[in-house]
């Protein structure tokens, strides 16, 4: 007998008591078994307040937050890179070109042939996002062409993420899952990489980027 049959057989025998009195598993039975009466959003907020809450919670987990309009974004990014002295920046395949129109660093593209070591030599990465969650201060990336592969936001030490506000902002985790496509690889990011493993002192940056800058860009 295969291991699969053995495990499934054990599961079925273990549930003999359930089988005796239970309805079969189907979507309706499941719906009835779980009360979804929990909140879709915590508190009542205007659109502006939701964006403010996002900014506040991002900052609370030590992301650096900037705000600008679509017209100002290229100047802002130029300034951020100049202040850091970044010379190279990883760019996903379809980043809106005007975002970096004024920035000096050399654009590096993530090619199939580039190794993790190549990515490790880049100073910074810039991406858009799929959405951002205000209540938790989270940005979510889904590998769309303005975000690129998962590895590009992981290896460099500095990540700048542009969030279009208010269009890409949702209030809560339930609202986020509704809008995301589970078939895409998803990365949820809440603040920079952190550890509390040493006497529970929080230290930023063990493996992922040590600095996360989030640009809340209005203008839709």
């Amino acid at each position, binding site marked *: 007998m295969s291991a699969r049959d053995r495990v499934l057989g054990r599961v079925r025998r273990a549930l003999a008591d359930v089988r005796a009195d239970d309805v079969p598993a189907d979507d309706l039975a499941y719906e009835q078994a779980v009360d979804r009466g929990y909140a879709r959003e915590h508190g009542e907020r205007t659109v502006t307040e939701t964006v403010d809450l996002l900014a506040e919670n991002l900052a609370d987990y030590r992301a650096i937050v900037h705000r600008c309009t679509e017209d100002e974004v290229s100047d802002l990014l130029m300034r951020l890179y100049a202040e850091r002295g970044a010379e190279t920046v990883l760019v996903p395949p379809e980043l809106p070109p005007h975002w970096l129109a004024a920035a000096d660093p050399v654009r590096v593209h993530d090619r199939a042939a580039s190794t993790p070591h190549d990515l490790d030599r880049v100073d910074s990465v810039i991406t858009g996002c799929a959405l951002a969650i205000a209540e938790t201060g989270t940005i979510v990336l889904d590998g769309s062409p303005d975000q690129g*592969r*998962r*590895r590009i936001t992981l290896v460099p030490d500095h990540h700048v993420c542009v969030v279009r506000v208010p269009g890409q902002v949702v209030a809560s985790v339930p609202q986020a899952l509704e809008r995301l496509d589970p078939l895409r690889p*998803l990365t949820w990011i809440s603040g920079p990489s952190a550890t509390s493993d*040493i006497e529970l002192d929080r230290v930023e*940056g063990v493996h992922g980027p040590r600095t996360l800058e989030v640009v809340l860009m209005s203008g839709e």
Partner: protein
Amino acid sequence: MSGGTFVGMPAFPAAAREAVGDATLRANLRHATHTIRDKRARAVAELSDWDRLREAGKRIKDHTLRHLDHYLVRLEESVERAGGTVHWAADAEEANRIVADLVRATGETEVVKVKSMATQEIGLNEALEAEGIRAYETDLAELIVQLGHDRPSHILVPAIHRNRGEIRDIFRKEMGHWGRPAPDGLTDTPAELAEAARLHLREKFLRAKVGISGANFMVAETGTLVVVESEGNGRMCLTLPETLISVVGIEKVVPAWRDLEVFLQTLPRSSTAERMNPYTSMWTGTTDQDGPSAFHLVLLDNGRTDTLADEVGRQALRCIRCSACLNVCPVYERAGGHAYGSVYPGPIGAILSPQLRGTGSDIDASLPYASSLCGACYEVCPVAIDIPEVLVHLRERVVQGGEATRGGNRVTLRPAKGHAAERAAMRAAGLAFARPGALRAGQRLASRTRRLHPRTLPGPGRAWSATRELPEVPAEPFRDWWRRTRGGNSGGTTEGSDR
């Protein structure tokens, strides 16, 4: 040998007595558990619907467990449709063999690992070592444990028993044997220690071809796996290698994508007291050009179906490993994680280990006594596992024997030797009563809030709860149990005891 059973591990009371005498350990633990505990309470208070989320989490998991075969088969279909390969393992040995064969087929002799309780439980690192494959733990705390030739002592913060000075010494002494040595003049500031770990591990991540992980959740509907972490080592292991192997207990499945909305709210707040942990990765099979080109999922039983067969004890399988119960437990706070003799310490370990492994050994027979039954663990549990109820149930099984399932077969357990059970109980009691104030406070808290606890399942769940009416919390305070079974006028000796 099952990797989860530490060889030569003394029974809980003996191990605990030793730990209680260790002042450094107690100070480290006390600081840590109290810090997380207080922060957690604040994080939970931010959500006005916490009780409803907790109830929903409980019901999602119960429903899944009641139809586990159905959801496992659906999960298997979804993962394979998305380009993954599913393997099944009835026990630790089978799982280790599958993983070793998969690694060997890649031609690699090194793998990077994300912290995973399931792979610790089956002793995967040791099994791979025996095959000439070196497994590098990449979570900072796991690295500390691995370099220190040590064992983890907490679910979430495995090196919670180590302070910064000890960590610096371990890094200085051991890093060089495993790869890049610690920098000269390394001090004990957490930032410098984390930096040393970053440099040491980065060279491994960047060249790794095989990654091994567990998972926090698996979604049957979509085939999505979820890993929740803080450091980014998880993301490194999940996305940089060419082959990814995930070893996951069969109880980690949830039916629908939507169910994540419950657990992604309750898990981070219960475990690290954060609104959201820094990184969550979700992947469904393989994706062209992004991440590993081969994905293998190993579904692990290893005692879980035996646990499922126990109508009272099966609720332990709801556990989402948040570790909140450890941080509030007065016994854990004094005894430390090692005393539990398993990768699952604390209150959840006291009910999970004896069910996964059976109560045959001294340590497993004594674990149901490693509690004061104060009920604090039930209070904080985000999926409302009634740990005290299961403890009492397991105590009865140890003392009276009875029907149980082991390795998929029904067996009749003999009662534990009277003297052994008595000694175990006595010592556990002495430990819990070392600070009777804390114990009483815990009991008072539990009884005050007991009205609020979910007691029966509505809808189709009623049939189940009707036959297992949840007892009051604490189900039976230790003192009462002691009086009833041992001490007082109500019988004096334990039923079924052979003395």
